[in-house]
């Protein structure tokens, strides 16, 4: 019992370190700009809510928020599912050159993004289009583009999980007459839940936070919150308060998504708890 409380104390300490910059984000959001350029004070003495009123009244930010949610959720689900299928293939089949393919996927994430913006822009505007419809400035376009860094990530984080699921289980199901499709979804998928949940969360996070690609490849219809944030960095002034306020708001949907998915990590504990 007393050891448990030691853990709690330890976590309170860690949480304090984790939360401090977030606390400071909040402090910035409830201070007038002029007070940011003064001798700092650890304690917040009064609140200035104007930034919140402004952000809540801004229509464009609401549409940015929707775009961000659609793009990151769509991308996370797509990458997790495709990554899961790919890992299943890599783990259960004896395809020639599969280790090279596995390694090759991750090289897509290594590329420094700045120079890849121009070819992506050209591809989206001039190659991947049908008639007047091009993938530039569309949610589906962004969902696909984000696969370049999220799909390799999903494959790499899921593979240890899938490899860890004993092959005897799906072979047994196979022998019982289950179709490969049923084996994948009804035997392997549930067992991979902790890994899938973590992959879903982290791919979602990467898509949610992505800035450079969204800034270049969206204009009006598919702009995301991060590009909205950068609007406040201008030559006239960086609107720290508004940026901070928007970020505080972005924590809310993110927390909801996290809350929903995190339970599945806990659920995985029943599969094999570790005494270290």
């Amino acid at each position: 019992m007393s050891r448990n409380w030691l853990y709690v104390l330890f976590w309170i300490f860690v949480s304090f370190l984790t939360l401090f910059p977030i606390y400071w984000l909040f402090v910035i959001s409830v201070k007038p700009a002029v007070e940011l350029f003064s001798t700092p004070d650890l304690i917040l003495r009064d609140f200035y809510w104007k930034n919140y009123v402004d952000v809540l009244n801004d229509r464009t930010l609401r549409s940015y928020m929707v775009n961000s949610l659609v793009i990151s959720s769509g991308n996370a689900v797509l990458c997790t599912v495709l990554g899961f299928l790919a890992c299943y293939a890599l783990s259960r089949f004896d395809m020639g050159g599969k280790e090279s393919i596995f390694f090759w996927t991750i090289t897509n994430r290594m590329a420094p993004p700045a120079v890849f913006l121009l070819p992506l822009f050209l591809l989206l505007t001039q190659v991947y289009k049908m008639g007047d419809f091009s993938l530039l400035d569309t949610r589906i376009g962004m969902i696909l583009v984000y696969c370049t860094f999220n799909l390799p990530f999903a494959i790499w984080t899921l593979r240890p999980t899938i490899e860890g699921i004993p092959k005897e289980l799906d072979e047994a199901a196979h022998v019982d007459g289950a179709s490969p499709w049923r084996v994948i979804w009804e035997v392997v998928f549930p067992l991979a839940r902790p890994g899938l949940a973590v992959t879903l969360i982290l791919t979602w996070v990467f898509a949610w936070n992505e800035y450079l690609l969204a800034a270049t490849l969206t204009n009006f219809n598919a702009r995301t919150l991060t590009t909205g944030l950068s609007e406040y960095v201008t030559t006239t002034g960086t609107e720290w308060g508004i940026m901070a306020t928007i970020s505080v708001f972005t924590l809310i949907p993110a927390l909801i998504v996290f809350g929903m998915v995190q339970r599945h990590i806990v659920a995985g504990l029943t599969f094999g708890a570790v005494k270290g």
Partner: protein
Amino acid sequence: MGFRLKLGVSALALAVASGAAFAQDDEFWKKAAEPYQGVTLRGVTEATPPSNYVREVLAPQFEELTGIRVDIETTSWDQMYDKAIKDMESGTGIYDMIYIEQDIVYAYLARDFLTNVTQMLADNPQLKAPTFDEGAFTTFADYFKDEDGGLYGIPMEAFIKVYLYRTDLFNDPEVQAAFKEKTGHDLKPATTHAEYAEIAQFFTDWGKEHDEDLWGTTSQAHTGHPASWYEYVESIAPTFGVYNWGIDAANNYAATVEHGGRMNSPEAKEALKWFLAMRDLAPPESVQSTWTEVASTFAAGRAAQGIVYGENAAWIASDENQSRVVGNVGVALPPLEDGILAQVEGGEGYVGYYDGGAFGLPVTSKNKEAALLFLEYIGQDSVQAQWALAGSRITNTATYDDPEVQALDKELGGYFTMLRDSGKLFAGAPPYPFHAQVREAVAPIFYEILTGTIEPDAGLDQMAERAEQELTDLGYRQ
């Protein structure tokens, strides 16, 4: 803070109020816009107050009047260029209007990215609005013209970088007495670098002695952001007589003294040392300060004087939410070396940048005619006054005479008056098509000078050589 969003709230009221003023011209707009019904124009700009006014107020007004929809994309400074360039370079035609900051216009002109508005109006008389007159612009429009006088951008904002000082401190008898005792001079805004330095030293000492958060000057001395380099080449070097970055375009783009340039001339070196000396008297955050933070530092009351961009001068002097020095801001010309003012008035050189921007019409646009109508619309005298109040920018001569603008001018310590009367002493960026390229080539050396890794003299020598190297690589220097 919330300058931009405050606009959104009042936009509707403004739109309604100013709707009546245009009644007599409605006829032309409706008729001219007839063929372009259903067109959506798309522009890209930076999210500054003047741009936001275009998005929130002028664009909806124009749509109501003509039925042509205008979408303005606002984004950050470097993204704006990158997106506009990618679009024009690849000929995609996403944008019908792009924001052109004054210093990049020469690069765009060199690449034939922009439409000649003068020419296009002459070719299409049915598009010429009776209320639009190229002659109505201030001299700032001259920086968007080619040799034949063709206009390539409709000016939308213009600023000068001015010397701000705290009137409450400068007029305080106690401070005045202390200053007199210490220096033997009367305390008044500086006109020379020596005077400026003396005042800066005095107030920094004063802050220390009285344990106040007060320093003698601001300094835009970021050690990793080009803002510091700009402060030096735009605002300090010219006041020592080194113009156009010390590069001599007429002389094969020479930068080193050896080849006939002035980037590492004795004057340039003196200017740099003065800049460094002022940096040492400025508040400690200056080493992380770009244009934004300099303005915030001054607005927070941490500096007695400073060289501050005009676009910030307005809110520093008038916005209580953002500034502690409202009503206590004086405006003056930047301090100069002896003889510079005579040189500038004689037509050689300038005392600082006349910066700002215009809206241009890319040749790749698919809706040129409709876009031209919108550009004419925002260039009219009648829309200028409210825009000036919202964004503290003036681009048309007539705007100075508007009573509301004049009232604001008083509040701003005479900033607009200075813009009108002394605007001619300031000049646009040198007509180089390679601003960002040379800047990024030499700036890393400049940062090393700021951190003290390289001595200022040696650093300037290296910068001049690096600039020539870059110009050779780009093909400008043979």
